């Protein structure tokens, strides 16, 4: 216990003080009520996000704001990492890998658009995060690769090399990136799961619980998406789900076989998530509306889990995970609101997506 106190005493105090700086429900409601992006900036003037939103005044570009917020999110996790040591530091570092995987996926999408789909790169690469996080990924190398050899060269000395090599043929033949993206996500969870095993027992239990929920949510989201948008033949080409969640593989397979999204949801929520089952069954609307509903449900489950972590014994990895999750959720929500306000979306429509 004393070692836990020593390991998490300082970071716990630091995080607790930062939790108070998360946006309140009132502020979020105010943001949603704002009519213009200028009002959003005014509403956030007294928050930690003020300086990031000021970028809109100097650039007129919401992508600059978005990018700064994304960089702030990554910086937040690195700041936490600074105060951690040993296996818990390794675990937080493994969490950072999520951002690296996202960066790699974004760069690959640009490469794919230019080289396989023969589209112009557009401006998506303008705000690509280039800082080195964990592995020496050459993002410029990926985007500018003109051949498969160039692409593989950009991944040299990274754990992604083999995954990319394995998928190159499928990408070139199938002209899509799903399989590779799914595998990259799998790589992240695999690495995370490895680091989780090294945590002390109490931390491991907490981390396993929250990560398994996340894996479940990823699986539910993917399966519902696939069932909604693809026929069974197309689906059979992909291994859509991750391992490590609480939903058994047989249930995942069963759900994946369904032809209707509602049915797939019913199967998926039959185990650990029965209390959320009332959510399905009545929404025979478009797949997009259904997906929105599912995403709303998944977000609710995550919020419940993170909230629970903050109420338990404080000197564990739980506080760190909960803060990282809440901060991530807040920044994602903020980015959505800023975009929605920029494109003049109505308040109720924005609420549906949050």
């Amino acid at each position: 216990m004393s070692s836990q106190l020593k390991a998490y005493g300082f970071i716990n105090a630091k995080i607790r003080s930062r939790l108070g700086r998360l946006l309140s429900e009132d502020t979020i409601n105010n943001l949603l009520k704002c009519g213009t992006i200028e009002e959003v900036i005014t509403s956030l003037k007294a928050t930690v996000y003020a300086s990031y939103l000021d970028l809109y005044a100097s650039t007129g570009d919401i992508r600059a704001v978005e990018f700064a917020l994304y960089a702030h999110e990554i910086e937040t996790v690195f700041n936490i990492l600074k105060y951690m040591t040993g296996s818990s530091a390794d675990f937080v570092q493994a969490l950072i890998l999520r951002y690296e995987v996202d960066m790699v996926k974004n760069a690959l999408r640009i490469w794919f658009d230019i080289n396989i789909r023969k589209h112009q790169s557009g401006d998506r690469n303008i705000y690509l995060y280039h800082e080195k996080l964990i592995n020496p990924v050459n993002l410029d190398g990926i985007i500018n690769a003109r051949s498969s050899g160039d692409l593989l060269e950009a991944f040299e000395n990274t754990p992604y090399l083999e995954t990319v090599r394995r998928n190159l043929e499928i990408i070139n033949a199938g002209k899509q990136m799903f399989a590779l993206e799914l595998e990259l996500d799998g790589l992240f969870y695999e690495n995370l799961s490895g680091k989780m095993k090294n945590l002390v027992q109490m931390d491991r239990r907490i981390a396993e619980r929250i990560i398994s929920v996340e894996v479940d949510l990823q699986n539910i989201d993917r399966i519902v998406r696939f069932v909604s948008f693809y026929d069974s033949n197309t689906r059979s080409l992909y291994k859509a789900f991750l391992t490590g969640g609480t939903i058994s593989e047989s249930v995942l397979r069963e759900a994946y076989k369904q032809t209707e999204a509602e049915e797939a949801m019913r199967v998926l929520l039959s185990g650990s998530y029965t209390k959320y089952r009332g959510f399905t069954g009545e929404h025979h609307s478009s797949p997009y509306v259904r997906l929105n509903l599912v995403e709303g449900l998944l977000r609710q489950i995550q919020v419940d889990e993170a909230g629970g972590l903050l109420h338990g014994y404080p000197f564990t990895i739980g506080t760190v995970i909960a803060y990282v999750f809440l901060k991530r959720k807040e920044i994602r929500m903020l980015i959505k609101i800023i975009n929605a306000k920029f494109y003049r979306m109505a308040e109720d429509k924005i609420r549906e997506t949050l």
Partner: protein
Amino acid sequence: MITTASMRQLIAAVPEQDVDDVTQALLQAGLIHFINIREIPTEWALHLNSPVSSAEGDKIRDLRRRLDAYFDATDFSPSSVVEDEKINFRSLDLRTAEKHLDEFGSEIRKVRDQQRQVQDEIMHLKELKRQLPETGQLGLSTGSGGRSYITVHTGSVLKERQEEFDEAFKDFPAVYMPGVGNEQEQDILITLRRDNDRTDTLLKRFGWEDAPGDIRIHSQKEDRKGIDIPGPLEKVNGKLEELKERQFRYEVKLKEFVSGKKHELACFWMDLRSAELALVIKGYYRKTERTYLFSGWIPADKQKNVNEILINASGGRCYLEWHNPVDREDPEIPKQVPVQMRNPKILKPFQSLVKNYGIPVYGSIDPTPVVAIFYLVMFGLMFGDAGHGLVVFLVGLAGSISMKKRKKKSILFPLITWCGIAAILFGVLFGSYFGFRLLPPLWFDYHAVVTGHHEAGSVRTLTDILVLTIYFGITVISTGLLINWYNHIKMKDWTGLIWDKGGILTGWIYGAGTAAAFYFIAHEYREFPGKLTLLLTLGIPVLLMGIKPFIEIKRHRLEHPGDPFGKINPLNIIMEWLVELLEIFSGYLSNTLSFMRVAGLGIAHVSLMVAFFQIAGMASVDGKFTVWSWVILIAGNILVIGLEGLSAGIQALRLNYYEFFSKYFIGNGVAYEPVSMRHKD
């Protein structure tokens, strides 16, 4: 100033034909703290309807907020117009207002779009810059050749198409340098490798001709006319600077655009705001068939004024009823009356400290002046140095002036200024000036007491300082008790006056206990006062406290007949009595001893200065301070001012909140917030 302002309740009825004039007059006066007429405990009030829909108000508020956000980009606050101008009530067509704002917004968007285009160019160039070597040469092969992720093209386009050619490459990372290549003055074009397809298309379109032979380009190269021709990196940097300048000009342009329309927009804002607030006021009205009813609270000294305003606005066609809250017997009434704290402007920082804790209940003492005195004395005792005080004073003053210039209200800086003054005064009393004894102390030499060199006067040892702060604590707590008794008398709460935790019996016990403690100390910790004295001074109030549970049960029975709580359980009563006594004894003892922190921080302040003087002494030569000694002293003073200033400020606040306020303060009052143009959301 001593108690909260006396208030009057108005219940008014005005005929429908005068309702707009009355509303405008009320908003212009800005004196009524409206209450929902349904809160008036009468049967009929519940059956009245509101005359306004909330949708209209929401729409107006949204439009006004949009305007606020545009103003936010400038340093101008539209609400400042309120101070100078009379409200001009004009009829507001919401559609036109919205259209007007949309037009304004679209003008802003146009500039934003231009900003975004420039931003795109900046980001493109930054991306290209990342690929260019920071120093040295950019090696080129014949014609078009690739290096890293850039492709360098050498060749030429027709001179008359060069500008158009440059413009065509604006949409992706590229730098075009006409006529800088080799002796043949070839053009150089650098793009990213991923854009090769797009580049080739453009090159074809412009009839680009690749240059023959091998050329090399230098970071800085002089052409034959002897003029510097920038290399690619310099070219990119130059272009970046130019774009950033353009970006800045757009930002300024936008601010100027809003500022240029400042007056027009401020008038528009006033129209929206007055319409919004008129609807807020109307939201409190309740409608009968032909009349409108409303109610609210007004400071008693404004009653005549409001009376006149309403009669004038309605042409005498109104019915006004005024009530004094103290005429009502209901003990809950004071909690519903809004509270106006009236203190001189110089005491506003301390009023904010009180408000931060809670709004005092109506009719009770407004402790602001007492808090000001206690807070400053505590701060001065903990931070008594005239030099340090001067620095704090100047910081506070500079901050206040800066905030005033920016038309922002600040409570912190005036408070810091006050703290500076207190520290200067106590510094003079202690004869401490940045730790030096420049002048003899008017009271006692704090430094000498801490270092053990003080031999004369009433305060000679550290114990004397501790005792001094205990006396001070007793004064603070006793003042709290006296205020509490006054509040109970004012509210005619006689039971509370005697048996409350800060009531007369508690005060009696505290006084007797304190006297007994001092007697014990005076007799070298060997003797207590006589048994009879103790029995009379402590025993009687302790026994009288035992009556409290009976009184509470009796009161409860009257208020809630049949409730099981009303049954007498002797064991419960004894336990309650004992716990109450324990709370009084331990609570008041710890409250009093808590004031020793004032001595603790004062001693720490001096000790730190002494320590820095000793360190500075170590750096001296032949007993004379060197430059290093002074550097140490200056750094030490800065540290002490920052560290101790903050600690003293926080501790003084803590002592006020927990040791002083807890004795009397009932902080569940409602703040007086009249609907006026200065009203905040």
